[in-house]
């Protein structure tokens, strides 16, 4: 069902956790759908220095969360905003069709976190 990449990120998720002194936090999803993703950012000089996540959700939700943190780290905010759920899924060699909709929200969570950073740092 899942690709090897998905299973790798699911079983060894990168960047799990919270950032104590995060300056951007985003959360998407809701409990009744079974997926909640929360992303913590540490942005300095417009560059994402650190990113961590916490996710309640299925295998795809966890793997996309992990993947998006890996993809975002070191990027500028503007570069990170170009990432989409689609590109995250592609970086994982694809997701089952049923998962594309509900469980593929990690880029949205990242964007929420960036938005939150921008709001705090206008």
């Amino acid at each position, binding site marked *: 069902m899942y690709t090897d990449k998905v299973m790798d990120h699911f079983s060894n998720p990168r960047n*799990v956790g919270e950032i104590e002194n995060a300056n951007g936090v985003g959360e998407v999803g809701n*409990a*009744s*759908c079974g997926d909640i993703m929360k992303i913590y950012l540490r942005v300095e000089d417009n560059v994402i220095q650190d990113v961590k996540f*916490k996710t*309640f959700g*299925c295998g795809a939700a966890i793997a996309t969360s992990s993947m998006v943190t890996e993809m975002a780290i070191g990027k500028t905010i503007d570069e990170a905003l170009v990432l989409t759920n689609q590109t995250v899924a592609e970086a994982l060699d694809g997701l089952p069709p*049923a998962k594309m909709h509900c*469980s593929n929200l990690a880029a949205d969570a990242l964007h929420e976190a960036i938005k939150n950073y921008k709001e705090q740092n206008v």
Partner: protein
Amino acid sequence: MKKIYLDNNATMPVKPEVLEALLPFYREQFGNPSSVHWAGRMVSGAVEKAREQVAALINCSPAEIVFLSCGSEGDNFAIKGTADALKDRGNHIITTSVEHPAVLETCEFLERNGYDVTYLKVDKDGMLNLADLEAAITDKTILISVMWANNETGNIYPIEEIGQIAKKHKIRFHTDAVQAVGKIPVDVQKANVDLAVISGHKIGAPKGVGAIYIRRGTRLTRLMHGGHQERNRRAGTHNVAGIVGMGVACELARQNREKDYAYVRKLRDKLESGIKKLVPEIKLNGHPNPDLRLPNTLNISFAYIEGEALLLHFDLKGIAASSGSACTSGSLEPSHVMGAMCVEVILAHSSTRFSLGTDNTEEDIDFVLQELPPIVERLREMSPLYNRGEPTPLSCDECRIIRRI
């Protein structure tokens, strides 16, 4: 890697004795039992023997058994067949909100076609209120359909009492006995049942065969029109090998059920008490009294985590279980059974069913009890809901209990 299969309510391997018995019917004895020549005669006796074996297990006459392709067909046949046959008598059906989709979706289909369906509520333990059931009966009621045991929680319903109520009000009574047969005693006479459905692959027969008990004299419109097979009850060339397998599986169940499921029950109880001891913040789904659940079934929710993720981690350790998570069912909502029991939606997403079988061992359970706590811990550590300051948004507004009287 060692493989531990704890998903016997979904399906189970064909028993070796069953496989051995059915194999000759693929090549040497390949005939169509409806044929009059040697090839047909060679197999028609085998079909009738299987019918006797099934009948003996549930205490009815062989002529009251009709072979089908699966449990779902049986539920469709019983309910649609009754709705059509008795349409002049009424259009009201009573069932429960915790039935298998084969019953629920059939009822919903009938609702779109002019029938009224009452879906009885269950309490937080998943049990029915029989006074509610009796109160739901109207002069238009043509069918009561209540499962003998629930596939997700293992809850056993009071089929004999319901049979009494049905008899008193002269209403036809169908029970989906797919999960009960072979695990607990099922006696259709004693329970006053008119229609009871069995599925082969839940008792060690192959997938693709099932049976329905139709009490003598029960008018039932065919679901499968066509040839004269099964005394005109079900068209289609007999699945001879499957039917022979079903017969042997029933025979084995009749001989071994008590002993086998005393053993399985011990393992299940060990798993249940082990998890309760080792993992905090869990919820048992189903009746707290283990005697009121199938001896092989345990359903537990692990707060803060999602079921599919849990199953995948089990799977990485070779453990197969199942989940009420929406993500594992192909639907958009978590298990309707959890919903009907008003299990909080997040807990519903983590409901995990362990359904044991006779192939399991003490070591299997020890292994699960060793692997489970760190997996839960790890997923909780990853969950934004765990140790959250604010209480988790665990409301019951998603409960989709449907009731219409």
